[in-house]
């Protein structure tokens, strides 16, 4: 007979404020096989844990039920405590009385106490059937894959490489640098973005521990924490990376004009070109969509071929597949920018002088389409009045409900830059809703903008129109003055928010990382595990996890790198024993489990059964994440989930149902 110890936690008043602990304790005492029941203010505290450990020793308890907060919070804490007392840590059952009872039913304390009793009863029923399990240990690969070469990927790669780990940095674009490379200055210090980023980009290229795979994409991910097998496809540049010296002679002779992606299409480059002035690697790439020879697959043009002294151009280049083995993965694929043309009334793409904030960054930048002069796209003249409009596509239920977190500060910075570039005679207005200057030095920067005579209109325009002469005008009602104002700007800059990257869906599927309701990648816990995904060994950095500014991105990247170092530094890791196992005698080889396993952990093997060759499923233990899909789908009940066996779960269900029937039938 098992000897079960039941512990009821008050969690201060979090549980005890709603649930009547005395009644739960008294009820638990009446349950069969329960040898001991205790309650305590904070079970997770040192004296609380010690109490359990001493009871295990003195009363020879062999099952422990703790009715406390969610197992996501403290199951691991209590498992350690139980193990220290010499009991197998998997003989512990957590009953959630906080998230599932006291916090959920604050208004109904009576019913909450009843529910708490039921849950404790169910916990005891399951605890009886728990089996001891052992954790296995596996060797880990001491190398890391970083996906995305923006500031997050760069920072994480450098941290990992400096700690001695080989890093593979994969970037989809022809050069690393990401969004930050496009920015002119950074808030709130007005540091030149390129000046602080390019040295890091060069460090990546120079670091012998980093292998940079630019112009490449991840195609397939297999394996499990510590032992991932990754397939990467290097797209052809049609230029030999080893031979190209970055002289740009080819670009000078290329006759095909192409919109420059780095300049947001505001200027033109050629079909063969280097991605940006600070590109790393500084190698030319041919755009196969525009290049005459590649487009028509004929022996035409070939001017770059003649011009290239290094003989680097190779029209025969094919996609190259690279196979990697890595222990940990950091996803740092960044975000997209909202397309304001979705909000028709703002006139973006309809009027040339309504531009987006990222376009403004390129216009104000010395390497941008206008050489750093702020000019109206429609007539090339210097604007006399500039209006910035906030919250475009963000805080808007029609598009993205969240705050983009960078719009306010980016606009303040751009307004200050406009003042610096154009002098004091230019009128600068910011139409805002709330001004969110929340970071270190941010509100001081907001004051600096006000010092520079930038006007703030507390209200958003409804629509932006054009009159017969082609000039832009709009009405905006100002909360401060209670007046309807009309603005006739020469240039309107829309504060487009950050949105989930187009690739996030694909990346999420590839790496089995789920996404939150806003579309960004979901962290394992919003407060306590913000750097990890729910998949062991895969970490998140930067704006792919949610909108962020540069300081937060860099902090998260360094944090994720430290997490990977922590994971891989011991050379081996412990695996949770919560895995599926297949009973070969029951398996019919129907392959349903193989088809639904999201982690590709089920393999079909031919086995000799009674002299006949038969298909049987086998779970690769290290890849199984213990999700239980296969166990519930198996038509012959051949698959058993350790720690969540049918018997254990059914015992809980029975415990939940029995009392209800006796209540009804008994009266």
């Amino acid at each position: 007979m098992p000897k079960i110890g039941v512990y009821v936690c008050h969690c201060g008043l979090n549980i005890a404020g709603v649930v009547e602990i005395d009644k739960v304790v008294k009820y638990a005492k009446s349950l069969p096989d329960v040898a001991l029941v205790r309650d305590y203010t904070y079970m997770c505290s040192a004296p609380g844990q010690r109490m359990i450990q001493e009871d295990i020793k003195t009363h020879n308890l062999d099952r422990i039920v703790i009715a406390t907060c969610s197992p996501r919070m403290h199951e691991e804490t209590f498992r350690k405590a139980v193990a220290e007392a010499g009991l197998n840590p998997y003989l512990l059952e957590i009953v959630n009385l906080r998230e599932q009872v006291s916090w959920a039913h604050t208004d109904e304390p009576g019913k909450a106490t009843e529910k708490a009793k039921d849950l404790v009863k169910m916990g005891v029923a399951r605890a009886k059937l728990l089996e001891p399990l052992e954790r296995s240990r596996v060797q880990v690969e001491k190398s890391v894959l970083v996906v995305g070469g923006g500031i997050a990927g760069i920072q994480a790669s450098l941290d990992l490489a400096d700690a001695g780990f080989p890093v593979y940095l994969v970037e989809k674009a022809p050069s690393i640098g990401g969004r930050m490379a496009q920015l002119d200055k950074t808030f709130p210090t007005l540091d030149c973005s390129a000046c602080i980023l390019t040295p890091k980009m060069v460090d990546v290229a120079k670091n012998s521990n980093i292998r940079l795979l630019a112009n490449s994409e991840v195609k397939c991910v297999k394996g499990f924490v510590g032992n991932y097998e990754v397939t990467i496809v290097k797209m052809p540049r049609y230029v030999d990376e080893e031979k190209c010296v970055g002289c740009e002679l080819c670009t000078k002779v290329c006759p095909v004009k192409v919109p420059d992606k780095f300049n947001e299409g505001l200027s033109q480059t050629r079909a063969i070109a280097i991605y940006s002035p600070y590109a790393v690697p500084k190698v030319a790439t041919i755009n196969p969509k525009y290049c005459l020879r590649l487009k028509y697959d004929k022996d035409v043009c070939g001017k770059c071929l003649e011009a290239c002294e290094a003989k680097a151009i190779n029209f025969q280049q094919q996609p190259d597949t690279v196979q990697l083995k890595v222990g940990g993965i950091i996803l740092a694929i960044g975000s997209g920018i909202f397309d304001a043309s979705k909000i028709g009334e703002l006139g973006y793409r309809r009027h040339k002088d309504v531009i987006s904030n990222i376009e403004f960054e390129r216009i104000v930048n010395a390497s941008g389409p206008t050489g750093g002069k702020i000019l109206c796209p429609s007539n090339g003249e210097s604007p006399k009045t500039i209006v910035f409009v906030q919250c475009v596509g963000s805080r808007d239920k029609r598009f993205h409900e969240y705050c983009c977190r960078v719009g306010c500060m980016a606009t303040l910075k751009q307004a200050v830059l406009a003042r610096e570039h154009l002098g004091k005679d230019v009128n600068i207005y910011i139409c805002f809703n709330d001004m969110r200057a929340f970071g270190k030095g941010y509100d001081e920067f907001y004051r600096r903008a006000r010092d520079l005579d930038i006007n703030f209109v507390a209200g958003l325009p409804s629509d932006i129109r054009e009159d017969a002469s082609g000039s832009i005008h709009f009405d905006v009602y100002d909360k401060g003055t209670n007046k309807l104002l009309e603005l006739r700007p020469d240039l309107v800059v829309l504060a487009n928010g950050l949105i989930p990257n187009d690739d996030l869906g694909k990346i999420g599927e590839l790496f089995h990382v789920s996404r939150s309701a806003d579309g960004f990648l979901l962290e394992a816990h919003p407060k306590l595990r913000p750097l990890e995904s729910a998949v062991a060994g895969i970490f998140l950095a930067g704006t792919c996890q949610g909108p962020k500014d540069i300081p937060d991105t860099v902090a998260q990247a360094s944090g994720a790198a430290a997490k990977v170092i922590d994971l891989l530094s011991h050379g081996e890791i412990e695996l949770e024993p919560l895995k599926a196992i297949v009973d070969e005698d029951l398996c019919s080889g129907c392959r349903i489990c193989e088809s639904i396993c999201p982690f590709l952990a089920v393999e079909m093997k031919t086995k000799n059964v009674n002299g006949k060759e038969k298909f049987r499923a086998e779970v690769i233990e290290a890849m199984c994440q213990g999700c239980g899909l296969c166990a519930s789908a198996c038509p012959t009940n051949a698959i058993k989930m350790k720690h969540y066996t049918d018997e254990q779960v059914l015992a809980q269900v029975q415990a939940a149902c029995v009392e209800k029937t006796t209540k009804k039938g008994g009266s």
Partner: protein
Amino acid sequence: MSLTDLMSMAKPNLESREKILAKLTSKGLVNCFQCIKCTSGCTALKLLELKPHEIVKLVNLGFIDELASSDIIWTCVTCLKCFQRCPQKASPYHVIMALRNLAVEREAKVPEGYLKAVSRILEVGLAEPPAEVVTRKMEIFNRESLKLPNIASPKESFQTAFMKILEEH
């Protein structure tokens, strides 16, 4: 009640607020964060001083009695811009319509034009009866000259159904 409007010494009327909320299919009203987009684009603002954001805020705070008896709620021209563009789906238009219904219920003064429109709909089936159009060349067009059929008067079943709708709201 702990809230007072010191300009008029009015107190919030939470009962009416509940009533209005119950009339609205979308409860976006409570999400309004006063971005003022509705008022910036309001067709009736320039001539009639309708400020939809103020109405939404007043209803949200419960200051409804003065609104329900004021003329301002009848100035909305129902262009639906505020409904379409509101980033919080608060739809000031629907709030104003709910206020109008409340005003009718309380037998507050309803502008004459609306009453006329109702009687015209009952009589001819149209809010605005067909009129003649004069072009720049001083040509006169009407339904007859355009060889359009005459509009039949509404049937009795329409009139009873219409009256029923009026009573229900």
